[in-house]
């Protein structure tokens, strides 16, 4: 009976690992989604290292567990078990060292990738886009023809009239041609510099395909830069529980070719 249990454990481990690796679940692969950003490969590399390292250890420990069950079952009375040389103490110490070294290595390598994305500044010439998060939507602002953003006046925010950012076009010329949209449109292969801010509570800007996630804290102007490398339409979602309508807080990111983007921008400028 004990041997059968050990065998079942090993079979379950091997089969489920194989399914995880090779089945595509009707297109819903369990592997990472497409990476559409310049920095994404670093993040993906880090995730895969972690996945392979911990996955290998997990599968190995399951198989060993099955083998031990197999080996230790149906033994005659008085059979002597072999123990780890030196007993439990050296085993625990070596386990702590092994796991500790693995975690530290992942953290050091990971922090380098992280710093490469978040602790560097955008190159000159990056396209600036202002992002306002609020319960429960994102809005995006482009500087318009004059290349200057109008100043923000939170007291002038009037969503019903379309003044999501609190601009004052009557007194502020720079604000008159600012383009405000609910869908973020960007050109491919050009660096984008976002300035994220929130008008009410904490939100988070997350685009899965860009491997980007950044909290938006009220009162702070948070810069975030990236370059998209694949055209397409991606979802921007809020990943900080921000209230009742949190699950509906999303917008779309459209990555277009430079020509398509120029045309789109011209149309928007004309509509101001």
């Amino acid at each position, binding site marked *: 009976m004990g041997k059968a249990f050990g065998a079942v454990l090993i079979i379950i481990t091997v089969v489920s690992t194989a399914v995880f690796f090779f089945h595509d679940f009707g297109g819903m692969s369990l592997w990472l989604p497409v990476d559409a950003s310049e920095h994404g490969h670093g993040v993906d590399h880090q995730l895969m290292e972690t996945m392979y390292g911990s996955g290998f250890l997990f599968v190995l420990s399951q198989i060993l567990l099955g083998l031990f069950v197999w080996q230790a079952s149906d033994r005659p009375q008085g059979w002597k078990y072999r123990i780890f040389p030196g007993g439990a103490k050296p085993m625990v110490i070596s386990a702590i060292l092994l796991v500790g070294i693995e975690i530290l290595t992942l953290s050091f390598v990971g922090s380098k990738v992280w710093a490469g994305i978040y602790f560097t500044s955008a190159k000159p010439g990056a396209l600036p886009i202002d992002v306002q998060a609020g319960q429960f939507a994102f809005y995006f602002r482009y500087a318009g023809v004059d290349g200057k953003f109008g100043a923000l006046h939170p007291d002038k925010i009037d969503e019903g009239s*379309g003044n999501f950012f609190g601009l004052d*076009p009557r007194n502020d010329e720079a604000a008159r041609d600012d383009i405000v949209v*609910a869908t973020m449109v960007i050109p491919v292969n050009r660096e984008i510099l976002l300035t994220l801010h929130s008008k009410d509570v904490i939100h988070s800007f997350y685009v899965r395909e860009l491997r980007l996630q950044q909290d938006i804290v009220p009162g702070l102007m948070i810069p975030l830069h990236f370059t998209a490398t694949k055209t397409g339409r991606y979802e921007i979602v809020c990943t900080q529980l921000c*209230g009742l309508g949190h699950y509906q807080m999303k917008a779309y990111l459209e990555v277009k070719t430079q020509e398509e983007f120029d045309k789109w921008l011209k149309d928007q400028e004309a*509509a101001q």
Partner: protein
Amino acid sequence: MKIRHLCPLLLVLLVSSGLASVPVPPPAGGTVTGKITYTGTPPKMKPIDMSKEPNCAKEHAASPVLTENVVSGPGNTLEWAVVYVSAGDQGSTPGTQTLKFDQKGCQYIPHVLVMQVDQPFQIVNSDPHLHNIHPLPKINPEWNKSQPPGTPPLTEKYDKPEFISVKCNVHPWMHGWFIVLNTSHYAVSGSDGSFTLKGLAPGKYTLTAWQEQFGTQAQDVTLASGETKNITFTFKALPY
């Protein structure tokens, strides 16, 4: 005086008072008609991007909805302005009919709902997704209610006159108005900017016109019995 002597006197009094209230035909109601117009350049209304709510984006895919704070018609006229008797009101009747305020295609319909103090109104969600209606009164109590799809209508009323901006917490572009008045003499201008106030007894009135972007204007009108007067309210529009 004995009570029995009083009886005939009381009878006479009763009969005479009854006679006094025999309905004399009421004076025929006066009417004020007119238009709401503007001079100058109003701000450009912008198309609303509803991509965050796929149901609504699909519904308006053919012609995007524009913001509604200045809805102008032919000949520089203005829709959704409210004209009401702000002084000299007489003969107002309480509003008892239940009004309807719909949330449909991520818009408030009507954009401006005029009601009387204590008049009930129903808030309906006709969309297949959640709305969260949040009127912003300063005098009346403020509330903020969620309506998942299929929820029965909410019935509400306000007991003080006020102009209340209405927003949806989930769809920030949605914008409407609750106009709570203490008169039954009011009208909302139509798509050609015209309005009609009927059944006004003879007298001197102050009429006020309100438009959400341009504020209010008032005019005095004196009406004789059955008279019809035509007036125009002209707002000064600025592009920003």
